[in-house]
């Protein structure tokens, strides 16, 4: 990436960071926050699904685990969500490894189906139980995050602006980590695994180890996203947060933008989420399902015409000589 690209990206970053300064209409900020949250989730998802080619359609489970963990700790021990989200990340990471270790033996579509199975198991367990390990999680009713005042420690704010900057920082963090992984030896190993696992293995790449590493990192950050979501919405709806629909949406965003590239998922989010949010706002009642139809159609169109995602297409503008 040369200086011109970096300059452009920094300019975009600056423009985004200045948004709340120019317009702090809460609804407007809300859209941006959701865009960045999905960009964040997409980028995290991409680390295992895009880079390593292990397409997980069960990632929402980890967002949910993160959300519930940090919230339960917040409710029962008053633990600051800043710490709670790290705990959530680690616990989710543990689950990710637990699920990943046996499942990584499976190829392609079988792996994907297994991730869906685990997602459903976790979802049903949460829905069916009022409490877990003695902690109240309210099952299908959903868990409310108690409002303990506008404070940094509690990660709760009256205005949307702090949330905006928080998710922006988180997004930058995962993009950075994503970039570091991609450019590192690990990134190359993952790419080799994605292209041809057997060949990579025969060349001495420790396939299991790198897959698990990517999985842990991906899941860890996905869970933190879940905690953020809980603190932002102040309510955890297990049907939504642990649902297959969310998993698929995250995947769609990353795929549309371009899985396998660092900025692809963010691009996908910036394209799809605004359309969805705006449609959701202006069309009500029966047509409320229109945004999801849009997601579905986008997926179909992109997979058919541009399977590498929009990113590849745009990247060509920047460097017509390469690739």
């Amino acid at each position, binding site marked *: 990436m040369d200086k011109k690209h970096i300059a452009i990206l920094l300019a975009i970053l600056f423009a985004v960071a200045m948004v709340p300064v120019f317009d702090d209409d809460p609804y407007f900020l809300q859209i941006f926050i959701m865009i960045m949250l999905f960009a964040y989730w997409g980028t995290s998802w991409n680390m295992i699904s895009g880079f390593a080619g292990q*397409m997980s*359609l069960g990632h929402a489970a980890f967002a949910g685990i993160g959300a519930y963990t940090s919230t339960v700790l917040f409710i029962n021990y008053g633990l600051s969500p800043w710490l709670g989200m790290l705990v959530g990340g680690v616990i989710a990471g543990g689950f990710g490894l637990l699920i990943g270790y*046996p*499942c990584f*033996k*499976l*190829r*392609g*579509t*079988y792996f*994907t*189906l*297994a991730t*869906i*199975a*685990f997602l*459903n*198991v976790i979802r*049903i*367990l949460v*829905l*069916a139980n009022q409490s877990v390990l003695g902690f109240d999680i309210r099952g299908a009713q959903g868990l409310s995050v108690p409002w303990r005042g506008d404070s940094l420690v509690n990660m709760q704010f009256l205005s949307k602006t702090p949330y905006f900057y928080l998710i922006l920082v988180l997004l930058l963090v995962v993009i950075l980590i994503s970039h570091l992984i991609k450019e590192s030896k690990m990134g190359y190993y993952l790419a080799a695994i994605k292209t041809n696992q057997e060949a990579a293995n025969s060349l001495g790449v420790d396939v299991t180890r790198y897959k698990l590493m990517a999985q842990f990192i991906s899941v860890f950050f996905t869970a933190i996203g879940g905690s953020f979501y809980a603190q932002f919405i102040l309510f955890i709806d297990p049907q939504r947060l642990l649902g*297959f*629909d969310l998993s*698929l949406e995250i*995947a*769609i965003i990353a*795929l549309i933008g371009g899985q396998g590239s660092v900025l692809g998922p963010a691009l996908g989010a910036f394209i799809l989420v605004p359309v969805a949010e705006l449609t959701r706002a202006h069309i009500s009642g*029966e*047509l409320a*399902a*229109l945004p*999801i*139809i849009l*997601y*579905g*159609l*986008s*997926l*179909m169109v992109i*997979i*058919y015409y541009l*399977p590498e995602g929009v990113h590849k297409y745009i990247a060509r503008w920047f460097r017509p000589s390469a690739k």
Partner: protein
Amino acid sequence: MESILQAGVSGILMGGIYSLIAIGLSLIFGVMRIINFAHGEFLMVGMYLSYWLITLLGIDPYVAALIVTPVLFLIGYAFQHGPLNTMLVREKTREPLSILLYTAGLSLVLQNVALIWFGADARAVSTSYTGTTFDLGPMIISIPRFYAFGISIVCTGFVFWVLTKTEIGRAIRATSQDRNTAKLMGINEKKIYCIAFGLGSALVGISGALLVPFYYIFPTVGSVFGLRSFIIVVLGGVGSIKGAFYGGILIGLVEAIATQFISPAYAEIIVFMMFVAVLLFKPTGLFGLEKS
């Protein structure tokens, strides 16, 4: 004791329909290695189609099945002929992930179009069969479920006959074993794909029509059945019609008994865990059958 028997029979009857849906998917997966994520949504389409035929035209549900089946066949055929064949050719690797994703998108579209068009409310049809039962010893058997089971068995037998005794069936089996050799033998494998997808969709269409007399119809009804059918196909052994058949019955049984004695939620968990267990420990399927 009686309740086990009742649950068991109930489960087997439902299992018949699961089998039929799974056999449809198995055909598609076996021949083309495609995971049709929208398989459940095709079921939903079949159900709504039946529903409208019954309520608007007053047709007998089992006659409606005769109309729904060819319609779904054509829909399936068209999809394969158009977008899917193109993508299948493009992706030369083992299982085409792109088609899984494409059909996942399709399933979202179908579900939500149905949601907009028909509304989220569950519908039920009142047919002359609905709610009727007969007694078999200590058990009460629901007549529409019984018919559904019976017709499913007949259809399964028919599929079996087609696959083993007809030219087309042999072509399908040949293509699923080795598409390149089949091509060398003069089989137009693209056409076979279309027929397989059409047939698989037709089977799911019949299943939908058979469900209507006793099951609720709503836009997301396909997702549960669809996911079940993937599980059953893997359970029975990919590409094995016999496996899908037994798998369906087994899942129906397990589900019914677990629902009765534990809870519906844990019944689902058990099914999922069985699925994962088979994937990990016996990937060729519980019944160890490779091809039918």
